[in-house]
């Protein structure tokens, strides 16, 4: 079972897509151009602090709001390994899988962690923090295939023998 550890950044409830990427930056050419402005209405310094392999831990309804697909793309572009939240808004959930961003639902973790802590995720099984284990649900294999391929379009290309 795949296992990874990462440093966490902690956010609150209802982190909406305008927080993840404000409208004014959507006209920039690529998601890499937009990434420095991620979360800027809330924490302008955060995008610069996030390092490859870090993990975001948030409250309920993460990703609520617009269907803008740049939101999960940017989180991925920042190098975030996965987002663990109490719950996710549904359009964001689908968009994340379609762009190869791993999302994990867990109701307890957010309330016991502090920013900068380390957590270890055993995929589709559990999260470990400070010696405590938190169970997580397994994603079906077809969704894992899409995430592992890096998104739906890449998964389809792979399936059709193009990549």
């Amino acid at each position, binding site marked *: 079972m795949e296992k990874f550890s990462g440093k966490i950044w902690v956010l609150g409830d209802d982190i909406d897509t305008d927080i993840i990427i404000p409208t004014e930056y959507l006209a920039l050419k690529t998601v890499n151009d937009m990434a420095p402005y991620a979360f800027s*209405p*809330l924490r302008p310094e955060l995008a610069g602090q996030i390092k490859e392999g870090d993990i975001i831990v948030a409250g309920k309804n993460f990703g609520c709001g617009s269907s803008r697909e740049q939101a999960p793309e940017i989180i991925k572009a920042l190098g975030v390994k996965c987002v663990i939240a109490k719950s996710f808004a549904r359009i964001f959930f689908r968009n994340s899988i379609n762009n190869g961003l791993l999302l994990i639902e867990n109701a307890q973790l957010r309330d016991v962690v502090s920013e900068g802590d380390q957590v270890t995720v055993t995929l589709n099984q559990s999260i470990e923090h400070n010696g405590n284990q938190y169970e997580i649900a397994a994603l079906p294999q077809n969704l894992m295939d899409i995430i592992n391929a890096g998104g739906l379009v890449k998964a389809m290309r792979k399936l059709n023998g193009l990549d």
Partner: protein
Amino acid sequence: MGMTMAEKIIAAAAGVSEVKPGDIHTVELDRLMSNDGTTHLTIDMYNKLKNPHIADVNKLVWIVDHNVPCDSVKTAASHKKMRDFAKANGIKFYEGAGVCHQVMMENHVTAGELIFGADSHTCAYGAVGAFGTGVGCTDYLYAMVTGKSWLLVPETLRFNLTGKLPEGVYARDLILTIIGQIGANGANYAAMEFGGEGLKTLDMSSRIAMCNLCVEAGAKTALMEVDQITLDYLKEHGREPKHSFKSDDDAKFAKVYDIDLSTIKPIVAKPHFVDSVVDAKECVGTHIDEAFLGSCNNGRIEDLRAGAAVIKGKKVHPLVRFLVVPASAAVYKQALKEGLLQIFMDAGAIVMNPNCSVCWGSCQGVIGENEVLISTGTRNFKGRAGHKDSFVYLASAATVTASAIKGEIATADMV
């Protein structure tokens, strides 16, 4: 076992006799709407496919509404990409005709259809009993190429409406009240279904305003029972229903809410969450810099009439910009005919062409640092209308207009 409206539409689109919440089905889609928010991204991905093709071009409707007319060289390039692709592939294309959901309601959507829109407020189509749901551009691309997609059958929250809204209280107050009651994720992954005797007192414009905002409670879709008002609206627009579904008497609802419309009051949603609702009276006196009457939620002729009735013969406060943005060209022409635009302009309002405007914080009317907007738009998220340190209050057309006159939040009975 009986089925809900959402379940019946999915069953029909999946070609099966029965579905239940939690099932995942492959469905045939009736219509695919996309706008200039993300269509350029869809085209980029489409062009990377091997031998790409569109499953059924007649299902596609593309609408330039978010930044129309375009506001920058970058946007011009993205619009051109969309326009050229639509032309080359024979896709139904609108530019300047209005906000996408209003254009869809006026020209395309009918009862019983299953529609994907690359825009979160696609749930508006439930006003005529269609299952509309917002998706991202990758899901849109897949549906465009295959004509199909997969859907998880949602649970349904049923809202039984009784009574009638009091004078001076609008559908927008009602839906904000409901969102406040169930919370910003109170309907996450679920369908919100509205029915009951109270629904019959709500006209089509009110129904669109309600369904449109259900995504702010996290809903996958919103659906209203098909009745005479629906059928009359469709007929008036030259359309027949595909299916006139109603939930079965023994359909299973995850939760049932009873809402007495006569108890609803003018409401304001405070910054920065749509479910942060209070009685409008609690916000009276709050300073504002700008007021916005428009959007797919509240820019129809009925909303302009409500605003015009409040401001007729009065003036916009000298320190307030009051933007009036009809939701479509059809609404604009009707307002012109009824003399409503004259009333707004005489009062000192800025009347603009149909577009998404400040509701999505681009194009026109964005607000600066520490500024306050009162809006009939869809969202009041932090930074939504411009500067990250600015503030948006959501309210009805009447409350927004009254506030524009006073220069601070006010209800219509105060002006």
